């Protein structure tokens, strides 16, 4: 609308409006924008190079590997097989087993990890002399990597020298219990993280709310589940997602504690992809990787949609 009158009286522009910019100033502004854009891309360049070479190019390579059959001899060219290899691998038992084991790993680690983290945080969230010592102890497993936690759990569940070597439901020798025993090392290793996150969330719950609930006759249990849990639910959700991601990435604990055994019972998806004994072809492993990629994307999408809502308001 505004352009029409402007076109009829271009010369009669009153001095107060700055619609018409002098050519020199416009050129100067353009130059500045060019310089700013150039600087921006200069600043972005290092990150973009890394992302291109080690994040996006490998995705292309995975697709290439998955659609080509590798010759057994590395120097021979690979042959294009379309989606045949991909669909065959992703509908096969190997992928299904990996999916089940990764899923079980989540079931074993996520709820137990969160419950224990909340338990530790609730216990340590109070005014007592020396409470900081307990808080430091509870956060201490943050210093432990997956590999360290696995060596730690060697002392507990190793079939020959573990302290609990005779406890059947922790046995690494049985396919029914091995994955659970391995997952306990992750639960323990994640305790520090879950404790720290839940405690930080508890510390932001306003005292007035719990006081008001007490005056209203809420007992400690009802107060906890009706007031505290809803208020810290975003932190719990965050933890659930982080623990799910950790479960999808489980590798070191399996290699160190069981080597995938017994009989492949602890081979998670990533273990099959990494394939330390080299029993799968590059094409199969690439197909499995694309399966893991889809899972990761689903988790990330879920994460994004849940984080978009303010969970504790419930509306």
């Amino acid at each position, binding site marked *: 609308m505004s352009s029409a009158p402007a076109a009829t009286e271009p010369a009669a522009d009153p001095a107060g409006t700055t619609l018409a910019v002098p050519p020199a100033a416009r050129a100067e502004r353009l130059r500045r924008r060019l310089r*700013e854009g150039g600087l921006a891309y200069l600043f972005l360049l290092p990150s973009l190079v890394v992302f291109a070479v080690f994040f996006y190019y490998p995705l292309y390579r995975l697709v290439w590997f998955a659609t080509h059959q590798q010759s057994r001899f590395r120097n021979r060219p690979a042959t294009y097989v379309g989606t045949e290899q991909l669909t065959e691998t992703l509908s096969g038992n190997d992928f299904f087993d990996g999916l089940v084991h990764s899923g079980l790993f989540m079931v074993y680690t996520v709820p137990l990890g969160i419950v224990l983290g909340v338990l530790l945080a609730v216990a340590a969230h109070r005014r007592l002399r020396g409470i900081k010592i307990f808080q430091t102890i509870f956060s201490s497993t943050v210093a432990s*990597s997956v590999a360290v936690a696995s060596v730690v759990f060697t002392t507990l569940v190793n079939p020959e020298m573990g302290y609990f070597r005779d406890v059947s439901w922790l046995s690494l020798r049985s396919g029914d219990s091995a994955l659970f025993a391995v997952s306990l090392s992750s639960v323990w290793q994640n305790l520090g993280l879950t404790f720290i996150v839940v405690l930080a969330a508890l510390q932001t719950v306003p005292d007035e709310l*719990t006081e008001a609930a007490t005056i209203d006759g809420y007992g400690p249990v009802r107060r906890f589940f009706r007031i505290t849990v809803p208020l810290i639910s975003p932190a719990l959700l965050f933890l659930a997602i982080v623990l799910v991601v950790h479960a999808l990435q489980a590798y*070191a604990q399996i290699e160190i504690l069981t080597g995938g055994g017994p009989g492949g019972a602890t081979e998670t998806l990533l273990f099959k992809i990494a394939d330390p004994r080299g029993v799968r072809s590059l094409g199969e492993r690439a197909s499995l990787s694309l399966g893991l990629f889809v899972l990761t994307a689903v988790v990330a999408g879920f994460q994004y949609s849940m984080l978009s809502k303010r969970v504790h308001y419930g509306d």
Partner: protein
Amino acid sequence: MATDDTTLGDTTLGNPALADATTAESDAALEPVGAAKPPRATRGPGSLASKLAWYVVLSALSLLVLFPIYMLLLRALSNPLRYINAGQPLYPVSIQWDVFSRAFTEAEMGRALTLSFVVTLIIVIAQLLTSVLAAYAFAFLEFPFKRLMFVVVVGTLLLPIEVTLIANIETIRELRLLNSVEGLTLPFLATAIGIFLIRQGFLGIPSELRDASTLDGYGHLRFLFRVAVPMTRPIIGSFVVISFLGAWNQYVWPRFATDRNAWQTVQVALRNIGNENPDQLNLGFAAAVIAALPLLVLLIFFQRQIVRGLTAGAVKG
């Protein structure tokens, strides 16, 4: 002590709950807000009996958390064969204090530690530099395809190293960088998480300050290093700490980017525990203690940064 319960480095964190996670501009969640908070009233002293009961509960939970660590120290310090012959009890047998120094000489922990420190240092410094620069571009500069570039950065979150592992290993192999510091570090020289965190920090800088610096004749570089970076020091500090944690604890990548023992990082060296002689087992357990020590030191001195770094993840998309 009135402040006893605003803990873990007396910072009450912005509750991830209260941060609006949809907009990346929710800087408030990263800022400590507890400085002026009055001490809590509800969880006050209470009766002596309830206090005592809580000490019992807390001690029991501590035992649960610490028992695995105790077992590790026990096995590291005991003479391995005599310990087994004694029926693997809950107390140490024939303590050997020199096991840690022997882990350095006999289990190559010195070499592995040096390599891990070099690799970690390169990754942390590079991530800091690349993230600060990229974050500055997103926070303070206008440029074509800005939204698209941001999507490119966000998209890398869908491609963790576990997904791209085998393709990246092929790339490193073709570049003849297996068993090299370059091979161990290249894929980690930039990270979306660093860009997000530091960008959030930059966006929290008041625009008046920006304008004032421009009036003072500060160019972008001077504003970045004299004003923006110093003002976001807490966030940058947290990022450095979690970047260090991540780089030090890496396992999958260094495991497959190397195939010689001489190139094993500390974490990867721990997998040798399975194929050691029974009379050398204590060295493997001592190695795990040594691998955890740098992080334990970090945890003690940088508790606040670790807490902020770990919980900041709650608001990143």
